[in-house]
C-alpha cells in the first residue's frame, strides 16, 4: 500500500472580492498552494443569492487548502480576527494525503 500522511483540509467560504486578501494570508503562512471553487448560489441570514449578479460583490467562493497541522493553526489564528467582519466560514477537517510530504 501507498504511503499517506495526515494533513488538514481547510475550507474558507468568502466573498469573491476578498479572495486575494485571504490568499495573501495563505502565502504569509507559507502554505504550498491554494485552489478556489466558485459557489453557484446559496442562502443564509441575508436571504438567497445566485452567482448571476452583475455585481460580483455578493458572490462567494471556497478557498481550499491542504496543509500540515502547524500551518493550519497559524492560518486560522491569523484569520480569526477577520471572521466576523468578513463573515468568513472556516472549517478544518482531517485528510490522508497520498505521497503528500510536500504539503
Amino acid at each position, binding site marked *: 500500500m501507498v504511503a499517506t500522511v495526515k494533513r488538514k483540509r481547510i475550507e474558507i467560504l468568502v*466573498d469573491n*472580492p476578498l479572495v486575494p*486578501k485571504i490568499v495573501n494570508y495563505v502565502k504569509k503562512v507559507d502554505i504550498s498552494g491554494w485552489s478556489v471553487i466558485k459557489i453557484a448560489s446559496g442562502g443564509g441570514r*441575508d436571504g438567497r443569492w*445566485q452567482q448571476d449578479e*452583475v*455585481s460580483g*460583490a*455578493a458572490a462567494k467562493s471556497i478557498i481550499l487548502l491542504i496543509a500540515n497541522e502547524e500551518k493550519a493553526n497559524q492560518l486560522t489564528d491569523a484569520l480569526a480576527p477577520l471572521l466576523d467582519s468578513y463573515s468568513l466560514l472556516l472549517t478544518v477537517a482531517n485528510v490522508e494525503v497520498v505521497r503528500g510530504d510536500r504539503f
Partner: protein
Amino acid sequence: MILDTLTSPVILFFILGFIAAVIRSDLAIPEAFAKAMSIYLMAAIGLKGGVEVASTGFSVDLAAAAVSGVLLGFTLPILAFILLRSFAKLSAIDAGAVSAHYGSVSVVTFVTAIELLTATGLRPDGFMVGVMALMEIPAIITGLLLARAYSKRLKESEELEDDGGSNLMHEVLTNGSVILLLGAFMIGFIAGAEGFAPIEPLFAVGFKGVLCLFLLDMGLIAARRLLETRKITIPLATLAVMLPIINGTIGTVVGTLVGLDPGSAAILGVLCASASYIAVPAAMRLALPQADPGIYLAMSLGITFPFNILFGISLFAAIAKFLG
C-alpha cells in the same frame, strides 16, 4: 417622454425581467453572458466616445463637464451621508458605504439614458463617456473618509490593516470597468473615425439589441434583490428614491450652469442620480467589510436603478430642457 420611455423595447425588456422575477420564474441569464454583454457595452460606448472626441477635438465644454463631474463625485456623498445618518439612522460604516454608491455612477443607467435621450432629440456629447469613467472613483474616497471619521469601531481596528489604504487605491484605480472604458475611449480617439470603420459593424449593429437583453437581466436582478432583502426599512426605501432625485437635479442644474447643452446636462444629472452596483460594491467589500452589502445592494440595484430607468431619466431630461 415618459410614455415614449415606457413603450421602448429597451425598457419593456427591463419590465419583463422584473415581472419574471416577481412571479418567481426561473428565467436566468448566465453570468458569463451578462458579463460578456457588459464588456461589449462598455467597449462600444468607450470607442464611440473616443471617436467623437477625435473628430470634435477637446473643448471647454469637455473640461467643464469633467471638472464638475469629479467635484460632484467628491461632494455628493456628504449630503447622502448626512441624510442616511439622520433620517435612516444608519451606522457611520453603513452610511459611508451607501453614500459612496450614490456618489459614483451606474454604467447601464448611463447607456440607457444615452439611448433614450438620443431617441428624443437630446443627443449628449461624446465626451460624457470619459466624464462617466472619471466619476466612478471620487465618491469611494469621500465615502471611506466619512466612515473613518465618524466610526469609533473603525478607528480602533485601524492598526490591524495598515496596508489596506494603498491596496485599495490600487484596486479602485485599476478597476476593470474604469480601465475598459478609458482604454476603449483612448483606442477610439487614436483610431479615429477611419480606423473605427472596420470594427464599427459589431459595435453599431448589435448595440441596442444587446442593451435590451442586458436590461432583461438587470430587471431580474433588481427584482430578486428587492424580494430577498430583509434590510430595507421605510426610511431607506424613501432615500433610495429621494437621493437620485436630489442628486440628479443638482447634476442637471450644475451641468446647465457650466454651459453644457441640454442633452449633456441631463446626462450629468443621470450620472449624479445613478448609484454604482459594480465598482463600488466590490471596493466596499474590500475596504469596509463591516458594512452590510444587504443594504447597499438592495438600495442601489433594487430601488434606485429601476427608479432611474423608468422615471429618473425622463425627469432630468425635462429639467434640462426647461433650463436649457
